């Protein structure tokens, strides 16, 4: 039984994906063979081996500045991009959650803003970028310290990645069963408690789906934004290599972009599936408390440490 399972795991997770990768490598080799240029005796599309040998220096010490040679490691470029993604994405979800609650919870708000959202949502990051630039110009008039292109990237990311979280949160709010609201009504919960103890936990699974989709979009957008701004980060790296005709490092960087996106998605997927774990934190505290109490009552061997009830008129727990 167990060895069969192990074998299946090996086939599913190692063998079959490897075959797929091998096919892609073959296609890549074919592509560079087909674009072979006799006059320069090199391929227009570098082969995997050339790609690696050309770009190895960027991978050798990925997180170091190489000022004297004039280039930075690829890890450093990725890290710069991730920082911008983090800021733009953070801004986006912080704004998206309350907007999503309003959109899902208030009929009037939905009537007012749903059409606008439907129009803003399909706007491409390439179109947001110049718009974000206008705002940055205005901000820089008051504060010259600010890095304009970074801010422009952050705004673009925020505007593009905000939508999945807004829409998913709204769907989650609308999907809350009437039953939960009836419980809240009978207990006469205050609106704060209604929100924090019922609406929020009931919507969290939907919200996390939104978070995952938003992060995917944020990563798509950063590369585009950095290509336009062209200063630093992995998107700028790709653009610079392209402009200077060193295609090996460019291809390597594109692959790294894909890998980072994949890792981010896996990460968010894990968090999303454990979203309910966040909700169970209070139960862990309660369980710890119960354990402590049962231990202390054992220690005294009487029930003195068990708190006695004030409300004596209520019934006893006899069978």
């Amino acid at each position, binding site marked *: 039984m167990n060895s069969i399972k192990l074998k299946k795991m090996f086939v599913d997770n190692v063998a079959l994906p490897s075959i797929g990768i091998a096919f892609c490598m073959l296609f890549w080799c074919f592509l560079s063979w087909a674009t072979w240029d006799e006059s320069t005796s090199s391929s227009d599309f570098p082969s995997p081996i050339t790609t690696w040998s050309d770009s190895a220096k960027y991978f050798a010490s990925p997180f170091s500045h190489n000022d004297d040679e004039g280039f930075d490691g690829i890890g450093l470029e990725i890290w710069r991009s991730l920082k911008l993604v983090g800021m733009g994405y953070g801004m986006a979800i912080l704004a998206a959650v309350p907007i999503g609650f309003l959109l899902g919870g208030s009929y009037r708000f939905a009537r007012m803003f749903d059409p606008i959202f439907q129009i803003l949502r399909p706007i491409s990051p390439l179109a947001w970028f110049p718009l974000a630039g206008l705002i940055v110009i205005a901000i820089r008039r008051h504060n010259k310290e600010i890095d304009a292109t970074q801010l422009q990237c952050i705004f673009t990311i925020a505007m593009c990645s905000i939508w999945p979280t807004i829409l998913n949160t709204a769907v989650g709010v609308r999907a809350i069963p009437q039953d939960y609201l009836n419980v809240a009504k009978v207990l006469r919960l205050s609106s704060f408690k209604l929100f924090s103890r019922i609406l929020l936990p009931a919507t969290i699974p939907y919200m996390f789906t939104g978070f995952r989709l938003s992060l995917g979009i944020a990563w798509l957008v950063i590369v585009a934004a950095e290509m336009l701004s062209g200063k630093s980060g992995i998107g700028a790296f790709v653009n610079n290599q392209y402009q200077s005709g060193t295609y090996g490092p460019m291809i390597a960087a594109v692959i790294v972009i894909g890998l980072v996106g994949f890792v981010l998605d896996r990460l968010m997927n894990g968090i999303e599936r454990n979203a309910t774990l966040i909700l169970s934190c209070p139960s862990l505290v*309660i369980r710890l408390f119960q354990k402590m109490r049962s231990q202390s009552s054992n220690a005294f061997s009487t029930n003195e440490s068990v708190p006695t009830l*004030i409300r004596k008129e209520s019934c006893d727990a006899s069978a």
Partner: protein
Amino acid sequence: MPLLELRNVSKGYGKGSLRTEVLKDLNLSIDEGEFVAIVGYSGTGKTTLISALAGLKSPDSGQVLMQGESAKQPGPDRGVVFQNYSLLPWLTVLENILFAVQHVLPNLSYPEQIAHCEKYIAMVKLSTATNKRPSELSGGMRQRVSLARTLATQPKVLLMDEPLSALDALTRGTLQNEIVSIWERDRRTVVLITNDVDEAILMADRVIPLLPGNGQGSTLGKPFVVEFDRPRTRESVTHHPAYKPLKKAIIQLLLSARRESQELVAVS
């Protein structure tokens, strides 16, 4: 003064040609400490009636009075055991009950609140499931959690919407006895909705049939007073000479009302 009162309450759903009348001109008064059972077939508007009593649905006309005062808003003084349990799935059994208890009894210290919850969990015999989530429980266990949650908030009136309908006959019997003995100990006012005439007779002081009214809304029939001595057990009740005639009369009334309403619908 009755504790809870309905005056000329009518309620329907929908508008225009889609309009269905559910309750028509109901009058009901429930005294403090009384155990009232309302029996009716599926779809006669029992849940609608209990929602009106709880203040969850406001009647189209008529009044709901609690101790003589209009009671439009729901509140913890009228605890409801919902037909579909209405437990919060992300909380464990203990937390579901604690959630209600913390809100209703905020003056107790935290250990006291937990002890209070545990007492009611033990009462419905779920101590082994204290830290389980609703998804890990059977339907009957969920219903017991729902019952414990409402009992733990110590409402003035306990409104129960078919609290035992999802249980098998055996568990149902034990819980019927359990609810009756809980009630006999502290004489809370109870309105029990049920579709089981035996259950109503075993538990209640008064059995009121809810009769379907040929598409114009259900009405309450004349109440049957159950005068069997307490504490009652299933045996003492079923062997009582008055039991069989009483049960027969109630079922007759329910059946004939249904037949009439069906005939009228067929004719029209």
